[in-house]
């Protein structure tokens, strides 16, 4: 009886591992009907669910809605969850240049593939073009706004040690509170260690998470990871350090559109390009702070901003 129970447990845990392996949110329930020609019809947009992505996605939604489209919006936790259904059943994705490029690269060339992105926007776009063609995806105009990793210290630490840029930390032993994917990344642990010569000990507490802020404010770690668009730092007495040796890839905001969908609906390009032109780090940072600090809904903030910019009526 013990044996039978143990075997049962073994089979059960085995099947759990298998289901875990293929877990993933079902982004689009069905293939949207896209045959209704330009200037309307159904469109599915998908993105990640953190505040910044949710806000930008809400802007896309408003714009497309304004252009006469029936918009279905899906927000999920991770990029691979929607990327596997893009461009098949997802039509438009608010993306970041380097993030999309590197993900397509690892999808196509395996987990160990050399990253193709760099801090140079044009070079990165050029390097990812073959992968985009292969996937059937077209990028519209990238924005000046770029959501890159950034590293912060407390104002006090900055003043006491005269640290304003990352190279000031060269040769120091630093505890870094960051996302668990930081380890080995050129824009995070590996870059800080190799390019800046900082001796990094990683605490995997999350990207701009409450735990990460707390750890730096409490002095458990000296350096914390957030993004260039973080509008909450000031209030917490934290300051960003300048990336003076350029380890951050070009994470400019960019609309990624299914090439097939774009060919049938050319009119989606113009409003999305206008949105990209209207955004820069400061504007977007303030808007995100309204969502993440003031708890306004992404939809309200998006509508407000687009009306103010005259992008929708």
């Amino acid at each position: 009886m013990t044996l039978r129970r143990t075997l049962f447990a073994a089979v059960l845990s085995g099947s759990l591992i298998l289901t875990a392996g293929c877990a993933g949110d079902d982004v689009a329930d069905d293939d949207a009907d896209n045959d209704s020609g330009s200037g309307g019809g159904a469109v599915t947009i998908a993105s990640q669910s953190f505040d910044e992505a949710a806000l930008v996605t809400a802007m896309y939604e408003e714009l497309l809605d304004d252009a006469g489209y029936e918009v279905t919006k899906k927000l999920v936790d991770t990029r691979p969850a929607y990327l596997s259904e893009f461009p098949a059943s997802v039509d438009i994705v608010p993306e970041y240049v380097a993030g999309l490029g590197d993900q397509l690269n690892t999808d196509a060339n395996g987990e160990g593939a050399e990253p193709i992105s760099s801090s140079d926007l044009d070079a990165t776009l050029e390097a990812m073009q073959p992968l985009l063609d292969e996937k059937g995806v077209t990028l519209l105009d990238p924005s000046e706004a770029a959501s890159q990793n950034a590293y912060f210290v407390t104002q006090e630490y900055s003043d006491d040690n005269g640290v304003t840029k990352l190279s000031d930390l060269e040769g120091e032993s630093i505890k870094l509170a960051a996302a668990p994917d930081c380890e080995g990344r050129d824009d995070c642990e590996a870059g800080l260690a190799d390019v800046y010569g900082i001796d990094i000990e990683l605490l995997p507490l999350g990207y701009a998470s409450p735990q990460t802020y707390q750890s730096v404010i409490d002095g458990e770690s000296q350096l914390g990871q957030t993004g260039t668009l973080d509008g909450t730092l000031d209030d917490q007495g934290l300051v960003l350090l300048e990336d003076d040796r350029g380890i951050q890839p070009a994470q400019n905001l960019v609309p990624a559109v299914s090439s097939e969908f774009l060919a049938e609906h050319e009119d989606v390009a113009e409003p999305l390009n206008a949105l990209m032109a209207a955004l820069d780090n400061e504007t977007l940072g303030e808007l995100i702070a309204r969502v993440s600090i003031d708890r306004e809904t992404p939809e309200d903030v998006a509508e407000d901003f687009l009306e103010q910019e005259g992008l929708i009526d």
Partner: protein
Amino acid sequence: MTLLELTWDYLTTAGSWTGNGGLLDRLVEQLLLTVTALLLGMGVGLPLALWLGHIGRGGFLAVNVSNIGRAIPTFALLAVLVTADWPGPAQLGPYGRAGLATLIALALFALPPLVTNAYTAVREVSADVLEAADGMGMSGRQRFWRVELPLALPLVVSGVRLALVQVWATATIAALVAGPGVGAIIVSGFARNKYSEGIGAAFVVAVAALVLELLAAAAQRAVQPGRGATVRTS
């Protein structure tokens, strides 16, 4: 290479096991975490549950209070403990970051099977046997140590065995607050798109759970009352 082959590669590479933060390191951390949390749970839960079973009162309350542990997600509890001023995320010796918070959360998680089994085990000792014990003139204390506990032991140990395997597998959540254990490899593997490492480490946790289960099953067999008796009479 397929994911399965990559995972096999990862598991059969010596470098994955040795070294700082390798699988062996993490396994030892997790075992330490599991055993300590289980002992804490046993230290609190077993005496109480056995005593309540002995006097035959208050068990309903005890079982239900400990069952709150089942209703509260362990990770939620851990998150609250880590955010609180005490115990907070402080380092605790070999238990690593947020060690105390993790131990408390896991010990509470271990309570329901321990308390339920121990209480039921003592309560379910046959009334005839108890009457016989009373008839022999045993005091309450004698009755407990010589009759109730030996007869209850297999079920008590089965509760410990259940708690052991549950706590072992759940101890991986320590990684979510940058704590110790194999969970650190699982989380970091999935976060870095190195699914082979995440799945490989999860597989190791599952296999270790089965090994623990087998060991605990052997321990349970050893305390089966029938066996001791046959040895003594033969």
